[in-house]
């Protein structure tokens, strides 16, 4: 009767793209929750309650880009354009593009199982994710 805990090492159980992405998708979801709540908290501290309508707060939460407050009648734009918010925005871009495109990939992979097609789709996914991330981050730091 063995009561010791049973473990299987990483090399024995295998580690692959799917193993990584499964954990990544879940953790990135939690990370985006965190970012959104920081965004909401930040917006409220900066006075969003009196300055912004709900839709704009939402947009700020999910993407703390000053573009998302420009249309609002905000007296002082400065606190909305700091490096901190640029980093926050970039983080969301990174998480959201990879999370979202991987979601798209896994929907496709449910149906398209031909191994070569699958490899091609995965390469495309990595490339597309990189490009989208670059675009997103570029916008974030230049606007």
């Amino acid at each position, binding site marked *: *009767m*063995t*009561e010791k*805990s*049973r*473990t*299987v*090492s*990483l090399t*024995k*159980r*295998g580690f*692959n*793209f*799917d*193993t990584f992405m*499964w*954990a990544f998708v879940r953790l990135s979801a939690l990370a985006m929750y965190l970012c959104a709540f920081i965004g909401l908290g930040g917006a409220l501290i900066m006075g969003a309650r009196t300055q912004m309508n709900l839709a704009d707060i939402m947009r700020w939460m999910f993407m703390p880009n000053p573009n998302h407050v420009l249309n609002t009648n905000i007296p002082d734009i400065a606190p909305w354009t700091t490096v901190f918010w640029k980093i926050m925005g970039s983080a969301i871009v990174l998480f959201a593009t990879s999370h979202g495109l991987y979601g798209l990939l*896994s929907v496709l*992979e*449910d*149906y398209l*199982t031909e191994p070569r097609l*699958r490899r091609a789709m995965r390469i495309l996914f990595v490339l597309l994710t990189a490009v989208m991330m670059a675009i997103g981050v570029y916008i974030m730091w230049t606007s």
Partner: protein
Amino acid sequence: MQVTLKISRYNPEVDKTFHYETYTLEAEPTDRVLDVLERIKGQYDGTLSFRRSCAHGICGSDAMRINGRNMLACKTLIRDVGEKITVEPVLGLRIIKDLIVDMEPFFDNYKKVLPYFINDSPLPEDGKERLQSPEARLRFDDTTKCILCGACTTSCPSFWASDEYLGPAALVNAHRFIFDDRDQAAAERLQIVNDVVGVWRCHTIFNCTVACPREIQITKAIGELKMALETGKLD
């Protein structure tokens, strides 16, 4: 009471595709759907074909779609499904005739996960049983209940999308051995299920858990496999 059954019919020797036929007959609310099917076959239409054996939910022969959801015909009473009943074969497997589907791909997937006990270490010297604590035995109790009826696998949208996906039933049986502390091939099985058509095609939809006539927590078992792959822990 009067019940009306709309049954999916397909005779491979005549038909190009399936069609529905409707039968109306007397039944008791406590009759099983299987009883009614038997009566239709016996009294009205001998050509109606379906599998059945034990008639009380243990052999797993008669998984079919009743009112659009996978069930065992022998574990479904008329009073639970109402007077208008639609009976169709399960989804995702080739229909051979009427309600009979080709189970071979299902069993092939089952066989892929090494669904048998592997322990090559010497037997206890007294020739008696290998010891196992009641707690360790309880760890995989739920998944030993599987009767391989296929209700779970054929309810799974991922399996509908592609039958390369091992499917819930195969994963349940992988779980049964991986979490048995007497077994020594957990690593091999984990490698097998650690595949794009293994556990990772499970999207936590819960159709399998709902469909399981043995009330196995299938999604939970698959979830435990995923966490075992992420953490390496089998407790």
